[in-house]
């Protein structure tokens, strides 16, 4: 029984990491209809900045964290201005290719600037583990799960309840008409890329203790975050979070009780099955399309 709960606990922690990474993805998707393949790469870059500030410049951890956030603001702004906006009229797949190019640029730059080594980066919360009836609970894991839910709730509020949120959604659906209604569309895009990049940075920094800081650190997490978003549904912010948690937990349970070698096949198989049964994800609403 301990093993069961321990696997679930670990699954929730990893799942939160996927969810955290997925939230930025979903935000960009919902504002500009772009699947940002480079989200993971951008998160990695920001995590490196935090690491360099902490390890290289010896700043205290909170300051390094903050520094990376400030960097992310700039980074998101630049990426949107330089790469995304000039192609705002391009088709959906063209935008995918742009973010593909972005992977190469950001990844390549990181490689050239930060070197090829992996580095350990400390946890956000360093405290003794708790042990509840044989199940080890790490305070840092609780912190990560809490942050994820906090961000999710914040995004949910912003998108659904604020004026900015409605403007963001309107822009996503019809940029031209949004302009005609006086929405400063370019500001909306900048904003959402900035927020998404910040989310990426937070995800990257929190993931770093698990994966180490390296140019390849986000690979698996990024892929899983996609799956999380789709599984839960791109249409909401709680969908991806639940999707992430499900994948994290499922991965562990399948590994624990079915097969460690076939677990990827099984988990992806379940994903495809879910999508066939519920094409827009678990929480996605299906609108009957009006003819």
């Amino acid at each position, binding site marked *: 029984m301990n*093993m069961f709960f*321990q*696997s679930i*606990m*670990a*699954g929730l*922690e*990893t799942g939160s*990491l996927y969810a955290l990474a997925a939230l930025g993805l979903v935000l960009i998707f919902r504002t500009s209809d772009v699947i940002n393949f480079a989200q993971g790469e951008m998160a990695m870059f920001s995590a490196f900045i935090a690491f360099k500030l902490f390890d290289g410049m010896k700043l205290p951890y909170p300051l390094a964290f903050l520094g990376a956030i400030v960097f992310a603001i700039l980074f998101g702004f630049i990426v949107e201005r330089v790469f995304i906006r000039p192609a705002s009229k391009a088709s959906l797949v063209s935008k995918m290719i742009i973010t593909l190019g972005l992977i190469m640029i950001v*990844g*390549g730059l990181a*490689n050239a600037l930060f*070197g*090829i*080594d*992996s*580095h*350990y980066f*400390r946890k956000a919360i360093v405290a003794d*583990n708790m042990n509840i009836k044989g199940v*080890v609970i*790490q305070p840092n894991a609780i912190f990560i799960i809490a942050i994820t839910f906090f961000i999710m709730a914040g995004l949910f509020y912003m998108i659904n309840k604020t004026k900015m949120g409605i403007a963001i959604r309107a822009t996503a659906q019809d940029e031209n008409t949004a302009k005609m209604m006086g929405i400063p569309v370019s500001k909306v895009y900048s904003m959402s890329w900035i927020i998404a990049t910040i989310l990426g940075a937070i995800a990257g920094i929190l*993931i770093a*203790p*698990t*994966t*180490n800081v*390296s*140019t*390849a650190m986000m*690979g*698996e*997490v990024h892929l899983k975050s996609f799956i999380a978003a789709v599984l839960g549904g791109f249409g909401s912010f709680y969908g991806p979070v639940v999707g992430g948690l499900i994948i*994290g937990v499922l*991965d*562990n349970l399948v*590994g*624990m009780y079915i097969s*460690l*070698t076939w677990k*990827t096949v099984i988990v992806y198989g379940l994903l495809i099955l879910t999508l066939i049964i519920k094409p827009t994800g678990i929480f996605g609403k299906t609108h009957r399309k009006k003819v």
Partner: protein
Amino acid sequence: EAAVNNEAGDKVEYAQGITEDTIKIGTIAVQSGVLSFIGTPYVAGMESYFNMINENGGVNGRKIELLKKDDEFKPDKAVAAVESLIYDDEVFAIVGQLGTPGVVAAQDIVKEKGIPSVYFGSGAVSLTKAGENFFPVQPNYVYEGKLMSKYAFEEFKADKVVVMYQNDDVGRDGLEGFKDGLKELDKSSMLPSEGEIAFGASDTDFTVQIQKAKEQDPDLIIIYGLGGATSGILKGMEGLGVNKPMLTTYSNADASFLKMASKGAPNVIENLNVMGWLEVNGESLKPLNEAMKKYYPDVPVNAYTMAGWVAGETFVAGVKKAGDNLTWDGYIKAMNNLKFTEGLAPEISYEPGVRQGVTKMAVSKVVKNNGQYEFKVKTAFKEFE
């Protein structure tokens, strides 16, 4: 045309890539993309060695000219690169081709041409039977696994082990070798089938695997995987408070792995032992460290750098032995008579038909020294007999 006299005094032409004062060779390694963390230090190590040799006058008056190709770890690019080197650039030898997919894909081409190919950045077993012109150096994973079983038995006195293996060629070969070894030692019962635990190279959460390992209550945990996942497992052990002796592959026997892994797992790291095929005390690493500082100051010195360096050493040892008889036959013959003990590896030698690469390995243990972790050699270099 350059020519030499062979033993019988006949005129023999130099092989391609050889002139009076140069030896042109080629290497292939991934140098861009996510996997460049392997290829970059590797090539840097090799090139530093050649630079050092060239600066000291070259080998028998010939400078070594290294052509580098990037295959992005892809077999098709590797094939094209090998062809370019052999047919278009006409190099004398392929030295230190890196990456199992590319090495195996190019195997036929290299064999067909008969060009010497020295050192492979790969632990693929198939190289041991590839042909007379193939000179693998670093131990293959199956052999290492086999040797681990011997150490598990002799050194760790284990009655029960668990093998956590990376679920790809690396880990599976290691596991296979380990099981082979147990069988030969008649100790198959040491590893129950529940003790074979797979993990993915890119996994981030090892809780399930660690719990399964712990459940077996083994005397020794073998971790057969590369640095990223292995450090992840150590962190997991730290988190879950698992304290068992561990033994991992030579791929992790370098200081930068230790530096990274120890920070995430300061308590369990001292349980870690590694296999090693190189003598990596401060003295023997000095030339490498100096050369790297000189030529590639921003590239880390790690297991890959050392591997590249050994590739250079091995090739040059063969050239020295061949003297002026720089035909392919001449070189291969020279290599077959080689017994090279001056390098980082304790001993490299080939006989016709024997292509095992290095077979002597030692176990080192992680120890804490003035607050720093380092490897300390704990056994002699032994072979599996």
